[in-house]
């Protein structure tokens, strides 16, 4: 069983977006950062990944092993093979991140994450370059593709925000809200590190309270995300939880927890990433300490414990 995953399946996060949207930069940061996770990152173009040689532990065939426990594997046209390769690693990765090709329909890549043996889909994150995304959306060759990629997003990350003025950025963000209704939207500025966007925090259910998820090691960076723990007296009404998952503000990035629904007698796993949410039966063997705890992760300063909790309790 993959550590940190309650259902034994390795979560797969798809990072998509057209060329130049900043996918490789994000991947490079994920690989280089000391976030304490054994990530497996599948990339299209090995050549573009820029890893400090001092961090590389081993390079065999299509796989690069790093000293921080992460691996980077080249997809080389056969996504299923690359998934099998990293899933067979010992120890298994805690999470897989797939860098979709710039012209991929994220839904197709997501289908692999959802239905490949040993995996399940975490979320589709689509990157949008603040400076060029609107012009690209009108391009005769890629316009339709760029807008379709955005429509498939659970989370939209606006990149290269430093290259535009604040009013321009506000315009782009407003436009993205129309293109990807319902998706969570976040902006990213140079120097900001945001592993929380990509990493499914499997350990959150262990009972973390409010904490900063942004890397403290980078003294210059501001915390972008924070998490809030909500404790519920179980059993709860299922409709109430579903409504909250649906209606909580789009500044909520992730939700994860275990609850018991009224009348069902069974424990359920509750998750949301951006607009994608699901409720499923929890695997056996969860301890009492998990029950009734929901961890909500979102944009720093936007999470109000009282409002979030009120939505659940009615």
């Amino acid at each position: 069983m993959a550590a940190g995953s309650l259902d034994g399946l390795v979560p797969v996060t798809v990072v998509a977006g057209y060329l130049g949207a900043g996918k490789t930069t994000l991947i490079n940061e994920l690989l280089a950062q000391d976030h304490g996770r054994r990530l497996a990152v599948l990339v299209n173009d090995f050549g573009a990944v820029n890893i400090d040689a001092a961090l590389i532990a081993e390079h065999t065939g299509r796989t690069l092993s790093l000293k921080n426990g992460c691996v980077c594997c080249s997809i080389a046209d056969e996504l299923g093979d690359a998934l099998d390769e990293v899933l067979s690693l010992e120890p298994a990765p805690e999470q897989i991140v797939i860098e979709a090709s710039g012209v991929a329909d994220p839904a197709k890549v997501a289908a692999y994450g959802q239905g490949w043996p040993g995996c399940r889909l975490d979320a589709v994150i689509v990157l949008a370059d603040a400076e060029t995304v609107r012009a690209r959306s009108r391009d005769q060759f890629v316009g339709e593709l760029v807008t379709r990629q955005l429509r498939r997003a659970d989370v939209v990350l606006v990149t290269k925000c430093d290259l535009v003025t604040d009013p321009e950025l506000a315009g782009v963000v407003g436009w993205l809200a129309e293109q990807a209704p319902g998706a969570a939207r976040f902006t990213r500025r140079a120097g900001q590190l945001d592993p929380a966007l990509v990493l499914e925090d499997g350990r959150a259910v262990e009972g973390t309270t409010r904490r900063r998820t942004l890397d403290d090691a980078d003294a210059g960076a501001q915390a972008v995300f924070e998490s809030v723990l909500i404790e519920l007296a179980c059993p709860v009404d299922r409709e109430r939880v579903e409504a909250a998952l649906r209606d909580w503000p789009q500044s909520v990035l992730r939700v994860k927890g275990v609850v018991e629904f009224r009348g069902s007698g069974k424990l359920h796993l509750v998750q949301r990433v951006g607009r994608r949410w699901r409720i499923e039966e929890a695997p056996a063997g969860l301890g009492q300490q998990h029950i009734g705890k929901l961890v909500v992760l979102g944009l720093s300063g936007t999470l109000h414990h009282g409002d979030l909790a009120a939505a659940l309790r009615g």
Partner: protein
Amino acid sequence: MADITVFLARTVRTMEPSLPVAEAVAVQGGRIVEVGTLETMRPWLEFRSHEVDDTFKDLCIMPGFVDPHLHPSMAAILLPMHFTTAVGWDLPWEDIGPVTGDEQFRTRLVDLDASLPTGEPLFAFGHHPIWHGPIDRNALNQVSATRPIVVWHRGYHSLAVNDACLRWMRLDTAAARRHPQVDLDAGRFFETGLGLALRHLRGFILEEVRFRRGLDRMRQVIHHGGHTTIGDAALGFYGFEEEWDHLQAVMERPDTPFRVQLMPFTMGPEGDERTDEELLERVLAYPSRNTHRLRFSDHVKMFADGGFFAELLMLKAPGHLDGRHGEWMTPPERFEAIARVLWNAGLKIHVHCSGDLGVELALSTLERLQWERPRFDHRFTFEHFGVSSSQQVDRMAAVGALASVNAYYVYELSEAFATSTLGYERASQISRVGSLERAGVRFAVHSDFPMAPAKPLNNAWVAANRLTESGAVMGAGERASLDAAIRAITSNAAHVLGLEEEIGSLRWGKRADFTVLEADPYEVGVEALRDIPIWGTVFEGEKFALRDG
């Protein structure tokens, strides 16, 4: 043995405008010494010893047929399977009639099941719901409860299996249930779901003995169609080095009556280069591996939009009839950047393009490159050329482009695409060879086998008649003339491959490659082109009959 062999024929069609018709071809050492009559070639026959071969005295000698674009490796996977297509396939080992209707499809599977040894999996290729109705796990279980059965869709993008096959595959059923493109109850795997099925099936279909048997069948198919040269238009779908090894083992033999011109991908599986220099270094190194029959040159392959059969073509307005979307196989910016590197290195670029937006990407890139760094005789070739406009054809003429067209689309797909994908106007004008001819754009026709039958005469027939499988004419204004249709499988096909100094027509110095026909295509006329029986071929001076005796 004499120095020179003189082949006599009722007619020799040289495809050389200076001497279009002759009666004899003198050959020495696999090359043509002279074309003419016994009388005109007398000086040669006086200087050197000779013998006369009159095997073809009642037949017609043509330049050896050239199909510049097919895929031996894909064929190697498909040919060991059993064909169940709605349109019949005349294969060297079996003439398979059309399989139409639900009941006939089922009967064909039952017959196949009865004919195979116990335990051997049954792979059937060519199911299409338009003709065969839906097929699912239950229906296949009724064919056999014990034999694994895989039914492959004609468009390659889905398959259906029975329970015995699910057991054989050792499928992770929980994963299959989660997969959005697997319908486990129906036993259907489609689009990305195919990856899950192939995870289990690939080992079987790519296994060396089976693959080489398929490749050997491909060898027969190529000879059967009357080819003496083919282009493998993208080596490396399943692994470049493995395919290269298989090709050498199966094709490079004294009894193989054709040569294969190989075109490497300039992106894709082998294309992980960091720099342009690395890309060029790889491409330019391939010819150093050349053998007698297997040859790389300075022609390279690129991909614009997705496949025509798979309906992944990219279209300009008004788009797809049913609102679906095509796919780019290469990001447009990346496409232009790679094309620029190849163009500036003087390479000859062939671009797979299916829809008019795919054509537009290739064409606007070519226009830009011509502006930046003009080249003459660059051989930039539009491959497949499904949907296009006559204005695009005029622009192609203006920048010196060539085309290698899959004319067969008209025969099998135009009517179905009129109702499902393109609407009638666009569908009736796919593969517009008539416009190419009028604009003076040199074009070949190809099979893209296994997409279309590897039969040059049949492809020329479709180009000149534009008849569909049901007998309707689609886009009469886009018919090629008889002469253009014949050139499209001989001289112009050789030109597209850059081999015009060596093959494609009959004159002194060229390879002695002939396709020998039982009638003269210029006499039988366009309607009967595809029905002309093929005696066989001559490859580099050696006779290869299709039938013994």
